[in-house]
């Protein structure tokens, strides 16, 4: 296993070096290897596929422009480096487009497709209701709080990892998370008594 990781790291290093020399195939391979991770992060953050695609493009463009300066020695792997750019691009994107998004009322999801095979209308309506509550709550957070919440709950990173990616202390991440959890608890107030169903696997 360790050998496999080493081979992977060596391949990635070779790929990055080729990309640094302007090899388009190498750039494409780096894109292919990392595109989903960045897109899903952006999608969970902005909750709109078109915006997430814009962020995806912005992240890779910024990363590829900065690639000649990418330093193998500083200990940050390519993926975390790219991930960090993706986080910054997402936050900037939301900040830049906040007013436009507020005006056109984004984050409205009339038909939420489900990952599971279940076609139960009750299930879809529950999911929609929960999603709406979460979207309302996310709108109330600052850009940084929102990103920290997404990284914790949707990307399932530890507070230590989040602190590394967001360039802040673990204590600050925890503080933001406590505030966000307080807000989401307020958002769901009364919800579980009115909707007494269980969150079982459907």
């Amino acid at each position, binding site marked *: 296993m360790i050998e496999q990781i080493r081979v992977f790291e060596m391949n990635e290093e070779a790929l990055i070096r080729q990309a640094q020399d302007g090899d388009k195939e190498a750039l494409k391979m780096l894109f292919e290897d990392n595109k989903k991770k960045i897109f899903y992060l952006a999608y969970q953050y902005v909750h709109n596929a078109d915006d*997430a695609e814009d962020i*995806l493009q912005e992240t890779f*463009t910024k990363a590829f422009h*900065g690639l000649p*300066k990418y330093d193998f020695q500083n200990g940050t792997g390519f993926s975390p480096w790219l991930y*960090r750019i993706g986080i910054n691009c997402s936050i900037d994107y939301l900040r830049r487009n906040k007013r436009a998004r507020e005006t056109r009322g984004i984050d409205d999801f009339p038909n*939420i497709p489900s990952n599971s095979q279940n076609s139960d209308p009750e299930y879809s309506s529950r999911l929609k209701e929960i999603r709406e509550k979460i979207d309302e709550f996310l709108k109330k957070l600052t850009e940084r709080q929102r990103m920290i919440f997404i990284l914790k709950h949707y990307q399932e990173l*530890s507070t230590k990892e989040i602190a590394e990616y967001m360039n802040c202390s673990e204590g600050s991440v925890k503080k933001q998370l406590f505030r966000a*959890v307080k807000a*989401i608890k307020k958002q769901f107030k009364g919800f579980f008594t009115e909707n007494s169903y269980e969150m079982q696997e459907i």
Partner: protein
Amino acid sequence: MRCKKFKEKIILNLYGELSEEEKSGLERHLKECAECSRDFEYTKKVFQAVEYSKKEKTPEANWERAWKGISSAVEEKPKRQLNLLLLPRWAYAAAAMAFVFALGIIIGSLWFPTLKKGPLPQKASLISMDQSLQEHFESLKPVLTEYANYSPSDERNGIITIDEEILEGLLLQNYLLKTAISSQKNPALQELLEDVDLILREVTNLRNGDRPTLSLIKDTINQRDILFKIEIFQKI
């Protein structure tokens, strides 16, 4: 107060980020405190709801279109254009003040035409402009040198600390000078102040550890010979 700490521990426990000792301390407290116990159950339900929301299907991007966009953008050099929407609020206030100031001068010159006679006021204004420029360049140099000398391998881990107020002051001073210079038909100086404006805005928006932008700032300063040009203008 004690319960507030436990409420935070409830969250950390659900994240799986408590040590065994902290966990058993929390369990003991939950057995004794009905309010915290209710809070624990409620927080758990809210977290389950968030988990539940993950069942929503994530759409796929149009990967081919995205790649085409990236690939054509990579072929172009990174563009740094002045985006007015990105300017902080105080910049708009400064622009408004500069506008009112300029308007005051125009109205004043129409109202008191005698003041226009004689070379003294014009000369005085040029002297003060020159002094302001020299002072501005003096304040700019250490900040720009700091970024021009940045090395990705240095110990500062991509962090250069410049006081926010100093930066805002420089940006404002640069903006006012740029506006004032525009009437003097000095394209070289105008261009230099435009470049400095761009760099200062990048620096203002820079986040700690954002090495690519830091490198871009360094490259812009060096490739456009900003420090050299400042030296030249100081000697003129």
